[in-house]
């Protein structure tokens, strides 16, 4: 079967790629574009490890077909730091040790950034509700929530 041709903007750059019609966005990012920062956890939309944004909306890339993103703008973890300069959320995750094994971290960072773009001053409850679609089996979430609160504080000042 002919491969599909998809044109998108990924982290601000226009990107063309070929993929199978039955390939998920997650699989296209990882296997076709070699952008392996986005992780696969469950493949069923429960864990959020594959979180990216499509036109600014947070989604699970395992639950979107790659052919569906034709003409859309995708943001992934690879676009979060500016060269060597980490995003405030990334810095605060390091400072607060808000990760252990790290497999959930790219998804949580993308989800947290998506929250702070809409709500620069979230309460702890709002952070926990927004991040409810991202599972972490190591930290117990407390340090993640603290890191997001701290990053929000810094980004506001």
């Amino acid at each position, binding site marked *: 079967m002919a491969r599909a041709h998809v044109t998108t903007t990924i982290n601000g750059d226009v990107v063309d790629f070929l993929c199978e*019609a039955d390939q998920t966005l997650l699989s296209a990012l990882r296997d076709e574009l070699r952008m392996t920062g986005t992780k696969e956890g469950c493949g069923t*939309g429960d864990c959020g490890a594959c979180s990216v944004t499509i036109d600014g909306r947070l989604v*699970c890339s395992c639950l979107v077909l790659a052919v569906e993103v034709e003409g859309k703008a995708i943001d992934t973890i690879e676009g979060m730091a500016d060269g060597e300069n980490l995003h405030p959320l990334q810095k605060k995750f390091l400072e607060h040790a808000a990760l252990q094994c790290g497999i959930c971290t790219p998804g949580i960072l993308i989800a947290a950034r998506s929250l702070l773009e809409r709500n620069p001053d979230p309460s702890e409850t709002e952070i926990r509700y927004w991040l409810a679609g991202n599972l972490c089996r190591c930290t117990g979430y407390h340090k993640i929530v603290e890191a997001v609160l701290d990053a929000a504080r810094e980004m506001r000042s």
Partner: protein
Amino acid sequence: MKPPPFKYHDPRTVAETVELLARNENAKILAGGQSLMPMLNMRYVQPDHVIDINRVEGLSYIREAGGRLEIGAMTRQREIEYADLVARRAPIVREAILNVGHRQTRNRGTLGGSLSHLDPAAELPLVSAALEATVHVQGPKGKRDIAMAEFPAGYMSPSIELDEMVIGVTLPVWPDGHGYGFVEFSRRHGDFAIVAAAVLLDVEAGGKIKRASVTVGGVGPSPVRCRDAEKALTGEKGAEAAFRAAAETCRTIDAMEDVYAPAWYRQHLATVMTRRAMVAAFGRAANAR
């Protein structure tokens, strides 16, 4: 976790979509994909054709017409969550939607998709049944309307033909100041409920319940209207014992059994969830005080 191979179609109109459905065997419609994609990834379903309706125009809207809310099949759950019109005119829908999945899935998932998938514990079929929605479907022979009470044909099976698709939903609106309550019990927030309850109460001046709607999800194979509870509530004035007695009628609903919960437990939860939803609904009714 990769979908099985299939042929992909991306029609631009409803007519084209139903034509594809009629022409291709073993075809599945891809709406928001938040149920179908997991099933494809797990290979629970192996369709030969996937018909992506994300580029079909005119299926995403929320509007008020003739005292009813009309919502397009492809309206994302997120749009419903943030719509002022929904919060004002059908606040129970907003309350229910806050229990649907999580941020990521609500950004993609659609109303039409949830109704077509028809999970027995899903929130949107439940509030659609509570509000006595009408589901609009279209096939090669044209459009037809199905009352939500008639929409489920059985477990996860809507009563639509293989070449028909859901195009929209009309929700009757309750009077301003009506009470509403949506309560669910699930193992984790965002999971499908084990049992969920939706209650609507129209309370007249003086605090008497004029009309009640009580519906449970997760108990039967599709949402169950609790007519005995509704009858028991009508004419009551919000006494705790009255809510308890009305909720108790839900213990005899024919209940499903699975690895998560035996039938008696679902029946028990139905009494607890409906009582809580009744108390919440009454507390919110403008005339309750």
